[in-house]
């Protein structure tokens, strides 16, 4: 769901368009600079590794055109990780006219070290000294003119989120582009010399005012201690859950269901009945299970409220800088399942949608970790859409049952993680993670991000959902469903103990995860059947878009392995629950 499209918009590059590389350390505000300059929406987040794949966007400065390439943020250019390799390749092969290098003013040392590495590539560079507002608040003052002289390149102070300084940045970029670099003047520094030089420059240009820590700084530090960090984490996660589940139910009942039932569906009924008389086509379109009935009710009334609220919570957590703190707290536990704490980020994203979660695993440095996280997310982490469906199916029946499904999901994650850690060769890297400042998220960029993600969900979910529902209505109306159900009866009714109509969920579940759940809605299932159906849907095959991204990231063989094991496990565990519970109830 909410699924993510990796926008590599095909921008036509003309011969005299300026080619600009946007580079920098992770979490310096590069994504924000990119969105502001190109007007394209890319997501930013307050932790390292937001930009893992690259994006291009067209930009204009006065009457001139250019293309801006957002290179993955890295700490160095030593090509020791995928992201660094990509960055180095860009510098070497893209024949760029100019590099815009974003520096974090609160972190000058590490950023200047990177600046010197970029300067080795003989491409004109303009530096954006970003986050200057945060630096000032911390009492850090930087003499920009001196810094400019020391570096020998233009330096512009910017506050990217407020669009301050970005115009000057472009002006300078065009000014220096194509300048010949005087190779003779260039000095190649060894690593130690570079750090010394950086240290010397910082002494020259930076003055730090020691001040009392602010409330957010103190809170940020407290979040990192086992106590009160763990209780805080508990409160944060429970609040998140409360907002999504409680808020979602409220939104659904107060706004979305009435809107769909009283206005949208009647509107389509009226429209369609003008053209079509009662019959198969009428039923497929606006009958009880019609495309314009369930195809609208399911995604908009049952799923959207949860997706929307999940993205509010996720975006807030991301931008506040809380997630890396959570990563520190969970690291010791995560290492038991073969991954380091930093992977909490893609896993939490997986509770929204598995697609960005799997793409997000690129930030992990070892293949083993990537495979473990991607498999866990595909297998046992329900996406927000599926959560909405579970709540629709189980929430009214019994909250206990809903809790049980999530408990089973959690246990599966632990067991699968331990097993994969044992059997997948390779190792995971130890945690080395920069902890960003805790920030109050900026309202407008938060809002934009939530809107972007919700919009993506609506676009990505609506079409497959309608087609799925249309297909379902068709097979049901034509009686095909009955014959197919007959074939798989030994599995559905025999092994899983579900009614024959449940076949529909298994067929539609291939398209989207929540579609494996929703067809169970009006079947009047018993408690046991509800549980079995939910568990099968939980573990069942990753949806079509997830399969696509798995293949793209890990190749066909591995994806097939993940896909097949999730299906087999789904049926195995579902049947196991069915038979165990049935057997136990016979005893009493």
């Amino acid at each position, binding site marked *: 769901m909410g699924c993510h499209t990796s926008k590599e918009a095909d921008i036509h590059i003309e011969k005299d368009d300026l080619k600009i590389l946007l580079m920098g350390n992770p979490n310096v505000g590069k994504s924000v600079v990119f969105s502001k300059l190109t007007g394209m929406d890319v997501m930013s987040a307050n932790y390292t590794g937001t930009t893992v794949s690259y994006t291009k966007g067209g930009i204009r400065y006065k009457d001139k055109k250019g293309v801006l390439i957002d290179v993955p943020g*890295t*700490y*160095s250019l*030593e090509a*020791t990780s995928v992201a660094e390799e990509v960055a180095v390749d860009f510098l070497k092969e893209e024949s760029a006219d100019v590099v815009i290098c974003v520096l974090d003013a*609160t*972190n000058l*040392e*590490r950023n200047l*070290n*990177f600046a010197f590495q970029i300067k080795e590539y003989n491409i004109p560079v303009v530096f954006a000294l970003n986050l200057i507002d945060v630096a000032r608040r*911390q009492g*850090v003052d930087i003499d920009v003119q001196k810094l400019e002289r020391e570096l020998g390149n233009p330096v512009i102070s910017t506050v990217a989120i407020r669009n301050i300084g970005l115009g000057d940045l472009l002006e300078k970029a065009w000014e220096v582009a194509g300048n010949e670099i005087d190779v003779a003047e260039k000095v190649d520094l060894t*690593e130690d010399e570079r*750090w010394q030089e950086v240290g010397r420059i910082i002494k020259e240009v930076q003055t*730090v005012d020691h001040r009392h820590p602010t409330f957010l700084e103190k809170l*940020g*530090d407290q979040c*990192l*201690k*086992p106590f009160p*960090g763990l209780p805080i984490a508990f409160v944060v996660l429970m609040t998140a859950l409360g907002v999504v589940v409680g808020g979602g139910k409220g939104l659904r009942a107060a706004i979305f269901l009435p809107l769909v039932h009283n206005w949208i569906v009647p509107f389509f009924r009226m429209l369609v009945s003008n053209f079509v008389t009662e019959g198969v086509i009428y039923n497929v379109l606006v009958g009880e299970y019609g495309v314009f009935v369930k195809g609208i009710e399911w995604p908009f009334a049952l799923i959207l409220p949860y997706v929307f609220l999940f993205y509010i919570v996720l975006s807030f957590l991301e931008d506040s800088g809380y997630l*890396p703190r959570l*990563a*520190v*707290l969970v*690291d*010791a*536990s995560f*290492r038991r399942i073969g991954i*380091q*704490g930093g992977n909490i980020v893609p896993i939490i994203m997986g509770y929204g949608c598995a697609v960005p979660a799997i793409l997000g695993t690129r930030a992990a*440095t070892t293949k083993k970790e990537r495979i473990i996280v991607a498999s866990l997310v595909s297998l046992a982490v329900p996406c927000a859409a599926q959560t909405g469906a579970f709540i629709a199916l189980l929430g009214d029946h019994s909250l206990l049952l809903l809790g049980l499904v999530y408990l089973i999901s959690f246990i599966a994650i632990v067991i699968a993680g331990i097993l994969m850690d044992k059997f997948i060769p390779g190792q995971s*890297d*130890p*945690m*080395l*993670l*920069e*902890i960003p400042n805790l920030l109050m998220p900026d309202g407008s960029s938060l809002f934009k991000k939530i809107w972007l993600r919700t919009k993506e969900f609506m676009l990505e979910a609506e079409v497959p959902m309608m087609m799925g529902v249309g297909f379902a209505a068709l097979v049901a109306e034509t009686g095909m469903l009955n014959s197919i159900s007959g074939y798989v009866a030994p599995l559905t009714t025999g092994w899983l103990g579900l009614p024959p109509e449940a076949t529909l969920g298994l067929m539609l579940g291939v398209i989207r995860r929540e579609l494996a759940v929703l067809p169970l809605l009006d079947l009047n299932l018993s408690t046991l059947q509800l549980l079995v159906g939910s568990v099968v849907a939980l573990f069942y095959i990753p949806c079509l878009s997830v399969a696509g991204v798995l293949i793209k990231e890990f190749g066909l063989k591995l994806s097939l392995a993940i896909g097949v094991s999730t299906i087999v496990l789904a049926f195995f565990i579902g049947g196991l629950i069915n038979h165990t519970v049935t057997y136990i109830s016979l005893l009493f």
Partner: protein
Amino acid sequence: MSLYNSKINFKCIIEKLPQINLLKSIGVREGMTVCIKSKQPFGGPVVIEMGKRSVAIARDVAQQILVREVQ
């Protein structure tokens, strides 16, 4: 003494680092003054403060970083 075993909130100077590239590029270097801000139980990482920044370092790595206390 290893960084991992230094006391919380006690300043120390890094004397020797293990050969880990990311450590350097993240800005941890020999000769720097750092202090441990927090330590997680069960073999979890430590968070160290260097200047105005905080960096989380896994126990295994922190054990290989040698430091000298300065107070």
